[in-house]
């Protein structure tokens, strides 16, 4: 086999792998568009806010994807729906406005595709990020105290302060990063119907 022949063969094989997956994938999932919900006059999937977009970066930088997935499977061959991780399976259109889009690596912790439904209250999410063992003593999720500021409390407690016992008269205040992370987690929900994945 000549060197030029080999070079062409290798190039074609690599191109075939790229084109076959990414180009054909583009025609199938890259051209998806949001769906108009005629009852609410909103499009789905919803466009996340700027704060939630920032929060997605915080989510990745804290390494949450090492233990949490972002993809609900089912109904056959998986217990995701039975575990209550979402009202329906996740489909490509759900990732339309998620940038970067991830599915996660492992499930040491639960899937978070619908954490915005399961734990909708911002304060509860904030408390979980500060110290997951406040609500569940056996949690294996690590705390993230570096996403919070400890500030000496004045005559009044600030409205953002977490409802946790203060140490040395200090209140726990979420940083911008913590607020962004909570906004991102709240944006994770798929409680809307899509033609390819209707709500039952």
């Amino acid at each position: 086999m000549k060197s030029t022949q080999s070079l062409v063969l290798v190039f074609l094989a690599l191109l075939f792998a790229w084109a076959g997956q990414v180009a054909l994938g583009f025609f199938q999932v890259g051209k998806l568009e949001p769906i108009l919900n005629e009852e609410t006059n909103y499009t789905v999937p919803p466009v996340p806010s700027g704060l939630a977009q920032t929060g997605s970066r915080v989510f990745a930088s804290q390494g949450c994807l090492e233990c949490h997935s972002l993809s609900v499977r089912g109904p056959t061959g998986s217990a995701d729906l039975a575990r209550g991780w979402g009202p329906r399976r996740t489909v490509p259109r759900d990732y339309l406005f998620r940038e970067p889009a991830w599915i996660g690596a492992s499930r040491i912790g639960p899937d978070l595709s619908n954490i915005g439904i399961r734990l909708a209250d911002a304060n509860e999410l904030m408390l979980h990020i500060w110290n997951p063992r406040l609500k569940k003593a056996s949690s294996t999720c690590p705390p993230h105290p570096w996403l919070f500021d400890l500030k000496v409390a004045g005559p009044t407690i600030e409205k953002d302060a977490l409802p946790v016992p203060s140490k040395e008269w200090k209140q726990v205040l979420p940083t911008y990063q913590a607020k962004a992370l909570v906004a991102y987690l709240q944006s994770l929900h798929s409680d809307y119907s899509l033609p390819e994945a209707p709500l039952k």
Partner: protein
Amino acid sequence: MNAPLSSFSKSSLASLILLIGSVSWALLGAGLQVLATLQLLVPSLAYLLPIPWIGYGHLAPLTTFLFTYGWITSGFLGVLLILIPRISGIPFRYGKLLTSAALLWQIAVLIGVAEIIWNGATGLVSLPFSRSVTCLFLASFLILGTGLTRGLGRSWKSGPLLPRLYLLAALLALPLGLGTAEVLLRGGLAPGALQIIAQLVWHSFLHHLWLTPLALVLLFQLLPTLTGRPVGSLSLGLLAWGATIGLGGWIGMSLASEGPVPSWLQSAGVVATILLGVAVWGNGTLLKPLLDGKIEECRRQVALRFLAVSLWSYFVSYAWLAFLAIPGIRQATTFTVVAQATQSLLLFSFYGNALAGAIYALLPASRTVGWPRHPALTIHFWFSTLGIASVASCYAIAGILQGLALNDPGVPMSTIASYLRPFLSIVLAGQIAWWIGQLAFSTLFFATLLKLFNSVAPVAIFPLPRDESAPSLNPAHH
């Protein structure tokens, strides 16, 4: 491989920088890996010592990055810079440029490490660093790859074909895969779910079209040289090569189960993974006979033993991947720690042993140094091998149990975490053993480079029991 050493001195500093980087990153990665597993095993540690960069979420992507880009890739490039001019007979030119490129690769790894420590990883599969690090990697590879291709192209007909074919494929796959992944994922060209497809394709390119072909280059070049036997059938080798190159880029899709990846792509990934068995069978048929009846040589020669383990790991890794791709098993084991078992088999056992064998075989030719007959050789082999075996097997069993438990909605997540704990204890012990093995190897490596040993031989030989100690060993120099 017998050309005069002075002809190749221009690339030797570059290869030395890459190999020193590789050994150092492996040591650092091994230590951090132990810390990461400790965090997973004892979650309370994160409460006692809440420091962001030593959390599992930071350390897990950091160690994968260190092992993939720092240890294995850097090491492979280092040994190829020694090997290629020797098999082609064409010495490198522009030594300073190669040295700068080797330094640039190490700087890129260093910046990547600093980024992941301070800012965390990007979350992208096999692309945990920023665009600037990608640019540094590509700039460095442009010079190193051009140097390697030059030695390859002009000597195409003068030696064994298969290592050259695998090298050619790998040299094209890295820039194509990394460059396009960067453009698609961070250039805004891949919307939504297409980003996940692009990540999985890049993951396939990195492992199955870059690292696997490079490891096969070393096996196809060094095993015949060390055993003195030629590779049998070229036609079978070409078939296996074609299957590896044609199917390797598709394997990543079998990692996705439902979700955002179209089902036909997942099926294509499954078919590719199972069909890749043809390539493994072909390469196995060619390489296994080289080791038949060579047990005594494997017992004595360090390089040969590491390469033999690497060859067996190649079979096991791809058989394991094919097993995981079987429908039913794939659904059950997606999102479990079986991914870590696969990583252990590929990175540590297959690529890692090929790299160790190549360093033992090629370093004396590059630096006019020799290896001592020291117990550290035995420690390196046994601690690494037993460490990897325990890590891979425990992750594999734990992952299957985790998958079965995840598919039973009656089992709470906290119970699943407790299932993993006993296995993680053994994994931790295995990782510590691997670290000790690397420590022994790096001690030998640096002591050999500094010529600290009195009696050395150009071929690394395991120290045998006292009564068998070999008077035939030829000390090369003092």
